[in-house]
């Protein structure tokens, strides 16, 4: 490849600038910043464009803006070059918005652009397709820079491609395809959009599901274990319950037997008792009959006859005995009556009413005598005297009260006058004081401020006067004056305040005085005008009068109190009431005296009448004494009444006895008739015998009645016996009892606790049964509940097997995907290994090229350059001194530069040989670090290279030109 012309329409500093390049070595020698680097960048930009490489989007290269032309709106240009016998021109507009590229065959003028389609970045990659190197590779190969090529994988790949002569295609797409396959499956279990992630997720979901479900099944199996245990327990409980029931039933049967037996025994007893009763009844009947026959008299009296006989026997003696007694009593009574009449003849003759009258009179006398009083004459006199004294004191008190009233009135008048005069005196004194106060002007307050004022004025004048002759003193005086004025100003304010207060006080006093004067004027109109001294004299006199009056009043009051004290009264009214009381007392005493005199006259009158009547009974009554007589006469009246009553009573009794005697005589006649009739009936008149027969008849009748009742009872029992069939029943009972006894013998043998009451046993067995049943029921309920729970729970669960089937399937899917992915990864891995294996073949291919130059560049010091293409192109050498293999980076910088230089040359050479392309060699200050000793061989080699390759050597130094001239290396000098 030969560059022939570079034309910049605009690129950095170059605008419309053409460089014509020659084959062989072109030397651009110019100082720094002259534009050498711009030229190299411009060349690359025109060849490859300004898009960033290695990314799929269209994006500006980093240096795009750096080379925007300074003075032109154009950005771009043309490059003419020849390649493998053809002549091309690349025309480029680099402006981003107008970017355009064109490839023209210069020989034919044909536009070849369309032969190269646009890629995604809208780039046709013209040069890359022409020479097989992209910009990066072109620069790495053609551009000699002092940098390592380690890490340059792309370069190594390209070299490898060249080595394998196109038999190998690019491996990147192959690996990419495998990677795509791996990516399609998915690497991460988290990427759920990919089959692997989805499958793993499915497994996880199913696994969780499965785990939960398994746990549920396991739990249910646990429940089942429990259930089976409970069922076993239930079976045991059932057995127990059954046993209890049997036992209870057996005991119940026994109890029933026992009860029945007891009932039968009771029944048997009952029948026996009844038959016994019947037998006893019959026995008793026979006994009674015998007794009756034995007792029966020759004539059995009927009950009516018995009554009549009885009556007769009872009555026949009574009338006779009674008659005798009656006659005796009648005689006694007649005697008694006669004696009473004799003894009480006096009283019987006396008129009782007269006696009563005398008694009334006596009672009056006694009453009157009791009402008599004997008044005491002295007492009556005393009462009268007291009344008079009271009257007198009362009058005196009235007088005293009037005087007291008068005294008090006068005192009031005097006091009024005294007060009036005293007020006038005070008014006069006040007026006098005010007059004095208002008329005084001496007390007006002083004004000390004036002193400062005058002082100030004085010192001012003095200051002014002194100012001329003694200015210092003058100034001092003026200063003092200033101070005085200042003080005056302050003091004046104070003075004004004091003065104002004084004036206000003065005004108040004046007003007060005026008011007082007005008042006095008014007062003087009502009372006579008096001067001050006469006023004083009069006031003293009034005072004396007042004192006298006070004394008089005290005396009056003292006397009043003495009267009150004497009569023990609190007030005049009370004293008056006492006077009235005393008057009433005196009046009553007079009335009593008169009444007494009347009573005594009446008593005398009555005594005369009574003594007249009592002459007949003088012996008994004695001399007249009202009370004794009253008692005695009352007693005499009672005695007279009693004698009369006794006589009457005795007379009545006597007549009653006589009547009764008549009746008794009649009854005796009738009895004799009846006895005669009975003697005839009974054939005997022995009354004793009658009585015996009567008694025996009664006995017979009683026994007959008893027999009759027994007979009835017996008949009743017989009827019952017939009806109830006692004999049959008894036989049946006995038969059943025998059977039961036989039956119960069997139980008795089984009974374990013989001593124990069968009923207690039954009660316990029933309690056991109840408890066993409760336990059984409870257990049964539990079992049913658990069974139901298990059934329900199973019903709610999906088939575990299905879930596990799906889970296994999902797992298989994951495993299949993993296997496929592992296969792909393994394929990729092994492919990379294979690539590595092939790459390792590169080293011997590159080595001869490198070694060809290394000896020349290092002046024979190093013979071999070892290339490791594993990671880009790492270089190492055998150091001549030690024979060690060392990376070139361990050598001195100068040597390293030489190594890189040799490597570049080797690459260019290698590319030329393998691809047939003779790439230009571009150096931009690349040899700047070479010292002169190293530069010379390097330039020699460049000269050698220039025979086959176009060389563009840019330098800022002149030594290259010199050395080349010295060495006779042909070159064309170019101007930047």
């Amino acid at each position: 490849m030969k560059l022939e012309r570079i034309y910049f329409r605009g690129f950095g500093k170059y605008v419309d600038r053409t460089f014509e390049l020659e084959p062989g070595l072109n030397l651009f020698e110019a100082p720094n910043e002259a534009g050498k680097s711009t030229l190299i960048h411009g060349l690359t930009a025109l060849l490859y464009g300004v898009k960033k490489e290695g990314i799929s989007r269209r994006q500006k290269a980093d240096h795009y803006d750096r080379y925007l032309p300074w003075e032109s709106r154009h950005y771009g240009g043309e490059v003419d070059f020849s390649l493998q016998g053809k002549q091309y021109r690349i025309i480029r507009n680099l402006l981003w918005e107008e970017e355009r590229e064109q490839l023209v065959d210069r020989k034919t003028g044909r536009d070849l652009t369309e032969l190269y389609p646009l890629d995604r970045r809208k780039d046709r990659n013209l040069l890359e397709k022409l020479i097989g190197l992209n910009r990066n590779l072109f620069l790495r190969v053609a551009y000699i820079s002092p940098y390592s090529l380690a890490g340059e994988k792309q370069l190594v790949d390209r070299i490898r491609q060249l080595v394998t002569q196109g038999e190998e295609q690019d491996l990147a797409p192959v690996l990419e395809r495998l990677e795509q396959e791996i990516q399609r499956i998915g690497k991460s279990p988290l990427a759920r959009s990919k089959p692997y992630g989805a499958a793993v997720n499915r497994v996880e979901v199913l696994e969780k599901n499965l785990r939960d479900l398994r746990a549920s099944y396991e739990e249910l199996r646990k429940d089942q274990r429990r259930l089976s245990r409970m069922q076993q327990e239930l079976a045991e409980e059932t057995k127990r319950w059954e046993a209890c029931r049997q036992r209870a039933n057996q005991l119940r049967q026994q109890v029933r037997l026992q009860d029945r037996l007891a009932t039968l025994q009771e029944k048997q007893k009952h029948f026996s008792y009844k038959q016994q009763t019947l037998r006893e009844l019959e026995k008793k009947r026979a006994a009674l009959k015998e007794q009756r026959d034995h007792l029966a008299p020759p004539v059995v009296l009927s009950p009516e006859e018995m009554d009549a006989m009885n009556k007769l026997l009872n009555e026949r003696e009574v009338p006779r005995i009674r008659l005798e007694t009656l006659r005796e009593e009648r005689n006694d009574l007649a005697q008694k009556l006669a004696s009473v009449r004799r003894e009480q003849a006096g009283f019987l003759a006396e008129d009782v009413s007269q006696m009563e009258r005398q008694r009334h009179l006596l009672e009056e006398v006694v009453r009157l005598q009791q009402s008599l009083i004997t008044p005491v004459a002295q007492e009556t006199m005393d009462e009268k005297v007291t009344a008079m004294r009271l009257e007198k004191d009362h009058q005196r008190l009235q007088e005293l009260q009037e005087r007291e009233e008068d005294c008090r009135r006068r005192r009031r008048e005097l006091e009024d006058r005294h007060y009036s005069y005293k007020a006038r005196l005070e008014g006069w004194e006040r007026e006098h004081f005010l007059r004095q106060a208002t008329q005084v002007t001496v007390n007006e307050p002083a004004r000390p401020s004036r002193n400062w004022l005058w002082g100030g004025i004085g010192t001012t004048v003095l200051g002014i006067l002194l100012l001329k002759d003694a200015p210092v003193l003058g100034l001092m005086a003026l200063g003092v004056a200033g101070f005085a004025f200042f003080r005056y100003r302050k003091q004046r304010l104070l003075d004004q305040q004091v003065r104002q207060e004084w004036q206000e006080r003065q005004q108040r006093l004046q007003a007060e005085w005026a008011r007082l004067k007005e008042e006095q004027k008014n007062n003087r109109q009502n009372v006579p005008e008096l001067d001050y001294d006469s006023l004083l004299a009069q006031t003293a006199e009034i005072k004396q009068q007042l004192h006298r009056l006070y004394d008089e009043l005290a005396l009056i009051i003292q006397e009043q109190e003495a009267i009150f004290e004497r009569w023990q009264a609190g007030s005049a009214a009370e004293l008056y009431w006492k006077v009235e009381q005393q008057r009433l007392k005196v009046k009553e005493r007079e009335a009593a005296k008169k009444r007494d005199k009347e009573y005594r006259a009446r008593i005398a009158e009555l005594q005369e009448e009574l003594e007249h009547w009592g002459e007949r009974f003088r012996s008994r009554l004695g001399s007249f004494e009202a009370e004794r007589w009253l008692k005695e006469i009352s007693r005499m009246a009672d005695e007279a009444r009693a004698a009369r009553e006794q006589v009457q009573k005795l007379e009545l009794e006597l007549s009653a006895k006589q009547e009764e005697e008549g009746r008794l005589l009649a009854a005796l006649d009738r009895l004799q008739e009846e006895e005669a009739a009975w003697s005839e009936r009974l054939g005997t008149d022995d009354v004793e015998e009658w009585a015996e027969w009567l008694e025996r008849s009664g006995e017979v009748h009683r026994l007959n009645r008893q027999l009759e009742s027994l007979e009835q009872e017996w008949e009743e029992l017989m009827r019952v016996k017939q009806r109830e069939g006692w004999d049959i029943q008894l036989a049946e009972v006995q038969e059943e009892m025998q059977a039961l006894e036989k039956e119960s013998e069997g139980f008795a043998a089984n009974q374990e606790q013989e001593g124990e009451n069968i009923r207690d046993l039954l009660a316990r067995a029933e309690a056991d049964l109840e408890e066993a049943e409760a336990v059984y029921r409870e257990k049964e309920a539990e079992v049913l509940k658990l069974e139901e729970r298990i059934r329900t729970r199973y019903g709610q669960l999906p088939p575990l097997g299905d879930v596990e089937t799906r889970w296994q399937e999902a797992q298989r899917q994951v495993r299949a995907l993993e296997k496929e992915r592992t296969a792909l990864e393994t394929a990729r891995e092994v492919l990379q290994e294979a690539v590595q294996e092939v790459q390792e073949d590169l080293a011997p291919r590159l080595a001869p090229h490198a070694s060809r130059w290394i000896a020349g560049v290092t002046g024979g010091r190093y013979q071999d350059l070892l290339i490791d293409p594993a990671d880009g192109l790492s270089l190492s050498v055998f150091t001549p001194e030690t024979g060690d293999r060392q990376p070139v980076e361990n050598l001195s910088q100068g040597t390293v530069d030489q190594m890189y230089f040799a490597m570049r040359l080797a690459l260019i050479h290698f590319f030329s040989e393998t691809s047939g392309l003779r790439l230009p060699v571009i150096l931009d200050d690349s040899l700047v670090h070479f010292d002169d000793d190293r530069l010379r061989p390097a330039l020699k080699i460049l000269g050698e290279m220039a025979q086959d390759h176009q060389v563009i050597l840019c330098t800022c130094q002149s030594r290259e030109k010199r050395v080349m001239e010295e060495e006779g290396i042909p070159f064309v000098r170019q101007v930047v």
Partner: protein
Amino acid sequence: MKPVTFVHTADLHLDLPVQGWKGNEEQLLLRREEYRQTFSRIVGLTKEKEAQFLLIAGDFLEHEYVNRSTVQWVMEQLERIPDVQVLIAPGNHDPYRTDSFYRTVKWPDHVHIFSEKWETHSFSQYDLCLYGKGFADMEERESSLPENGQDGERRLMLVHGTLGHRKEASPYFPLSMEELAPLEMDYVALGHIHQAVTHRLANERKTVVRYPGSPEALRWKETGERTVTVGRLDTGGIRWEAVPVHTRRYEIYHIDVTGCETEEELLRRIGENIPADRREAYLRLIFQGRRPREIVYASDWLELRLRQQGFFYTECMDQSVPDFDVERLREADGVAGAFVRRMEARIEQANEEEKEMLQEALYKGLEALLTPEVVHK
């Protein structure tokens, strides 16, 4: 002596997860139903054959998975044959544990579940003595035998366990023909092995010892017809026959895809290889041979097409290899050669499990490296 007819089955594993299942939800439901149908068919057969006994030699209900509703359904089925003595000897998958439905649910009166101890049941009307025993737990390493019966009676034995010619250690009730022979049983009804198998013991009665196999396939190994055993004891001794009862069978077909350039061709070839009467079965199709290197079979698509063509259920397993000339590539320079050599070296060193994956990696790598664009359907 009255003749006695019995139906002998085992290993139903009701409610066990369907092993190696790839179908959809609906198909799974259907499969679950098919297991029930099979049991229902067994009950029907018992009735039809007028058998006096239904012997179930264990692994009847899958202990860990069985649902109460399944148990309820089973009991309802058994109610259909109230005159048949149903005898169940629990196995290692349905041991006679306290948390088993065998113990917590009231089973119909004509159903007897053997406990963990040997039980002897005499049926004098048939002059028959029946010995049975269940598993006490998931494992039972120590085996035992029933006591010797009386002479003359007919004897049946029902148990779940592992039978060998000689006694060998096994966690599942190891039994040997040696020790069974002296018992002089007429028939020993076993369960545990899912493939039907019969042994004749060298004793007087020429005892028949039989595993009836699983009556419905539980995994892909259990292909073909699934049966129960119908036995008859009469004067002539024991006679038996295997009666198919499966609802749907499992079948595996290997299809050589070599020469099929397109998937349509492959579909045609599948059609040609599978008889029409197998389309109702669960089919596993294993592709073998070489396929064009640019084709990867999409099993979902194939299964869909096959369903459209009337196949009830298919699952495709591609074991074919892409048509690479590995021999030549192995010798070649460059990356491909290096890759083949390295992969083959790895395959050689890998264990069986890895080998498969590495084989796949080899072909995937080659596809990526050498095929311009692999066709993915």
